[in-house]
């Protein structure tokens, strides 16, 4: 039988399909004739059966699947990481050591195949049992988890303690070797599902990772041989996403302050705040970089706070996601600023949308401006954006935009003299900036129309319309 294990994105994420294949492999290992060689493990005076060495397991995998040493090692590591096999001598190190260190199979109840969730309640019961066994001496992270769970599921705590005591007493009904094996099993299970800090936890993204269901859940059982982790086996999907990332990085690399330096100078290095001044939100003349960025992408343009339609867009977003207690005031402000006829920053939306919006503004709620917002967005995207880029306004802006000179030389000389007193200019505090913004807004609001007047006007208009037809 041939095997192919699909590694999602060529990395450590294992899909559900692969987990099934690992399970089939582990079941194959159980065969008394063709399976892995077993030996007994001596623990003090008892002897627990069914232990195997890492080297044996590795050899078995190599012979069974006809793969190389390195790939078998990798596969073995995954089998241990997912909890099908657990190490006996070094339980926190979930790798398959190719020497004589011992491993044992995990009981099927604890296999990850079924994707049964490792619930908090179960973990709490386990910790309580461990507490009893170790007479209160738990490890640091276990103590923390215990206290945390105690607060989280406090209402269940009576049940947790009851069940933990009973399970502990039940465990004593078995013989010593069995008890030892069962304890090891449970401990290994929780080391996989609730790893201590610092331990590599493959289940962080493992089986619950969001993967494409159509791609993965199809049961593919018959393929050609080898399970290889080379680049060629990577999904086409990952190649596509890589291309997109590369394109994005190339496009934005000149804008990235870390990759290609920033003009005039990086404020953190040279204490010169000119960069921040030039790129402040409401600056009159934006820098060249910024203007160029607008040409990349419509969403870049939207995000930039200069511009009218965009101002409306931003205000709508603020309404949607912002503080609900202020909805009424915000809605009124937006109306005064953008929607009322003759408003200072009037936006162009069609009559029907305007009607709906104004009616909705009577009882303002989070999504009252959605229709208008969508309309504006579509309008901007399809129509204005293309025209804007070709328009003389944009070209003018590009020409006017400053390309600030680099001011490195002077400052560097200053900073290299250690005892020179550096003149540190502090940037204006954000509180002051905010005050300035608010004052501006207040000035704009002073020249606008009251909402109720317009409402009554609309009503009168509709009444007139009703009167007209019967005539």
């Amino acid at each position, binding site marked *: 039988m041939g095997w192919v294990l699909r590694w999602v994105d060529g990395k450590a994420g294992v899909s559900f399909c692969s987990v099934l294949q690992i399970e089939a492999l582990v079941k194959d290992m159980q065969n008394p004739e063709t399976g892995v060689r077993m030996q007994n493990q001596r623990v003090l005076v008892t002897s627990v059966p*069914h232990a195997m060495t890492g080297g044996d397991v590795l050899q078995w995998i190599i012979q069974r699947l006809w793969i190389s040493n390195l790939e078998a090692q990798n596969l073995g590591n995954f089998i241990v990481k997912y909890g099908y096999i657990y190490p006996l001598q070094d339980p926190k190190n979930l790798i398959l050591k190719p020497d004589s260190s011992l491993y044992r199979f995990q009981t*099927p109840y604890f296999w990850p195949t*079924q994707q049964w969730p490792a619930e908090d309640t179960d973990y709490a019961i386990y910790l309580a049992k461990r507490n009893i066994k170790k007479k209160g001496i738990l490890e640091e992270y276990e103590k923390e988890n215990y206290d945390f769970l105690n607060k989280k599921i406090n*209402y*269940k705590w*009576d049940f947790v303690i*009851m*069940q933990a005591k009973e399970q502990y007493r*039940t465990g004593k009904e078995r013989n010593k070797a069995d008890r030892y094996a069962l304890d090891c099993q449970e401990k290994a299970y929780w080391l996989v599902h609730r790893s201590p800090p610092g331990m590599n936890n493959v289940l962080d993204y493992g089986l619950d990772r969001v993967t494409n269901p159509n791609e993965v859940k199809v049961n593919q059982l018959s393929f050609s041989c080898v399970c290889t982790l080379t680049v060629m086996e990577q999904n086409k999907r990952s190649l596509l996403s890589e291309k997109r990332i590369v394109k994005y990085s190339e496009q934005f690399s000149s804008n990235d302050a870390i990759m290609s330096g920033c003009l005039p100078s990086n404020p953190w290095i040279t204490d010169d705040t000119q960069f921040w001044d030039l790129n402040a939100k409401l600056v009159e003349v934006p820098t060249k970089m910024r203007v160029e960025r607008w040409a990349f992408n419509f969403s870049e343009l939207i995000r930039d706070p200069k511009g009218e339609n965009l101002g409306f867009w931003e205000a709508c977003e603020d309404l949607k996601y912002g503080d609900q207690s202020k909805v009424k005031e915000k809605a009124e402000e937006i109306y005064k600023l953008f929607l009322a006829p003759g408003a200072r920053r009037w936006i162009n939306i069609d009559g029907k949308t305007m009607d709906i919006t104004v009616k909705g503004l009577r009882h303002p709620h989070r999504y009252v401006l959605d229709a208008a917002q969508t309309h504006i967005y579509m309008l901007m995207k399809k129509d204005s954006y293309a025209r804007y880029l070709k328009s003389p306004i944009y070209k003018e802006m590009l020409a006017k935009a400053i390309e600030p000179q680099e001011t490195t030389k002077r400052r560097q000389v200053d900073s290299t003299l250690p005892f020179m007193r550096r003149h540190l200019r502090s940037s204006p505090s954000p509180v002051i900036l905010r005050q300035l913004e608010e004052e501006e807004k207040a000035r704009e609001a002073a020249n606008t129309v009251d909402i109720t007047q317009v409402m009554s006007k609309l009503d009168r208009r509709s009444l007139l319309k009703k009167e007209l037809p019967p005539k």
Partner: protein
Amino acid sequence: MAREECKALLDALNKTTACYHHLVLTVGGSADTQDLREELQKTRQKARELAVATGARLTVALRDRGLATEERAEFERLWVAFSGCLDLLEADMQRSLTLGAAFPLHAPRRPLVRTGVAGGSSAVAARALSARSLRHEAEGDFDVADLPELEREVLQVGKMIDDMEMKVNVPRWTVQARQAAGAELLSGASAGASSAGGISVQERAGPCDPNKALAATVFSAVLLVAVALALCVAKLS
């Protein structure tokens, strides 16, 4: 008293659930036999009977509107513990169904997983059923015959949980647990314990630890020898 009765039933259910959980852990492993499957069946029957009885009593008590607040709080606590037991039981039954189907014991037999657990579990089952010992009467293909029965029972338990949720409305998060963190370290009765975690008091009821007894005898022997030597020295000098 209704409360004592409920508590006793709940304790029994708790014990049976713990035993059932313990038995399900070994399904599919090297200790999986027809006997184990039979024990599972008997344990879960007992658990279901207890669950039905406890549920009925608790429902009657909680639907009684004339109940004092303190009593009501007590019953709500019992209710939360009861629903925890039921949830655990249902989950374990579901898992034993899946595992039982995945690891059939009848021929042609796929080899079971060699988990290192080899002994018998009849003591556990006897504990669950509060019996001294257990007689195994299972035939060769008990596990196969049992699966549809198990499936039906899983659905029944699920339905029971839903019914009870419908009849009794207990907001779980308002229930205050009586026992604090670390209460499991105190042996003896469970109610009323209050201490911060980490108390390591544990009395040993029953026979002493043989190691400690050995150490005690050795120490006393050495002490006697020392005393004898001292006397000899005193006599000689």
